């Protein structure tokens, strides 16, 4: 026991010099995208939205075949129907969003200066429902995934444009997401970045690890393993469990901040969701 602590303490001291200064999202973005471009000089930035298929030719060929008639098609249709349905009070989702909710997914997650909180498109949908006297939807799958599939589809091709305003609360949320992303956790002692930055493109058992760059652009996804649609937060929860870390609640600030940071890192890349993944 003690020995482990000594090692930890030593490592803490060694890395103390690297401690973060003031959050600087723009500089982070440049370094993050630069890291991938340096490691994979032949891969154009926009190709990263293809996730694991960015790197694997044979898997890419299978995926292309599956994308001929993508399995999220049912979700898209159902999402459109849900989105266009009127609430009991006569209003609808369109009334809650800029531009009637069409072609806006690239702007999320957003910082809400009124609450000081990060709002994902999913939590915005739930806020809209609550404002109209309805229950919230489960954020991980089902109707929420279908609604997100449709709304994201109307943003396809638009460059991701997440804004971190010069507000200490927004910067703090961004920083919290960043810290979560790079912190090792769980009994297996992995961080998000261990797999999706350092090891991106390599195989973990049967699958190619998706790069963190462009990762959020394809959500929600139809995942063959789930046989079902799932949202980004469903994937966060899955990854946390995989490294034997107890997941947080789907609407927790932890996951909203993580989505904020991670999506910001893909700024400029085109929205490609909904997606299909193994």
């Amino acid at each position, binding site marked *: *026991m003690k*020995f*482990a*602590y000594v*090692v*930890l*303490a030593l*490592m*803490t001291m060694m*890395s*103390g010099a*690297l*401690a*973060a200064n003031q959050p600087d999202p723009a500089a*982070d973005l440049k*370094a*993050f995208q*630069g*890291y991938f471009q340096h490691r994979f000089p032949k891969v154009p930035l926009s190709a990263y939205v293809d996730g694991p298929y960015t790197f694997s030719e044979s898997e890419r060929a299978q995926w292309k075949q599956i994308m001929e008639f993508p399995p999220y098609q049912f979700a898209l249709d159902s999402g459109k129907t849900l989105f266009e349905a009127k609430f009991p009070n006569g209003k609808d989702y369109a009334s809650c969003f800029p531009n009637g909710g069409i072609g806006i997914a690239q702007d999320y997650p957003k910082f809400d200066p009124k609450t000081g909180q990060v709002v994902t498109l999913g939590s915005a949908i739930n806020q809209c429902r609550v404002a109209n006297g309805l229950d919230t939807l489960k954020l991980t799958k089902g109707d929420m995934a279908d609604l997100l599939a449709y709304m994201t589809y109307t943003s396809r091709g638009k460059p991701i444009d997440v804004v971190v305003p010069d507000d200490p609360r927004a910067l703090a949320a961004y920083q919290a997401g*960043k*810290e*979560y992303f*790079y*912190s*090792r*956790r*769980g*009994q*297996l*002692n992995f*961080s998000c*970045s*261990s797999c999706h*930055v*350092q090891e991106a493109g390599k195989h973990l058992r049967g699958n190619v690890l998706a790069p963190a760059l462009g990762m959020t652009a394809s959500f929600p996804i139809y995942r063959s393993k789930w046989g079902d649609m799932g949202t980004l937060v469903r994937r966060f929860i899955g990854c946390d*469990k995989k490294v*034997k*870390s*107890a997941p*947080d609640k789907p609407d927790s600030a*932890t996951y909203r901040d993580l989505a904020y940071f991670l999506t910001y890192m893909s700024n400029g890349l085109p929205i490609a969701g909904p997606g299909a993944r193994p």
Partner: protein
Amino acid sequence: MKPFGVAVMMLLVLPGVAMADGATKAGADQDIALAKAKMQAAAALGNQWTPTEAAFKRAEAAEQKGDFAAAQKAAARARQLADLSIGQATAQKKLWTGAVPH
């Protein structure tokens, strides 16, 4: 030395520690309470491990069944795992910046 090595070492250190003597209900309850307190501290750091939760559940279940020795053993395990996750989270408060691409 990579932090991953630390986790491996942490795991290696574990088996020698859990010793359940004099298994009574009071002893089991006390160990469960101790484990719970540690787990609350881990949760406050946002770093509970799922095996910690599993061990704690095993402890509670054994206590319910009156198997106090097993309850104490599982509670001690939960406490140690929680302790390790606290150590990990505390260390990562500084270490995480080392993983950021520059």
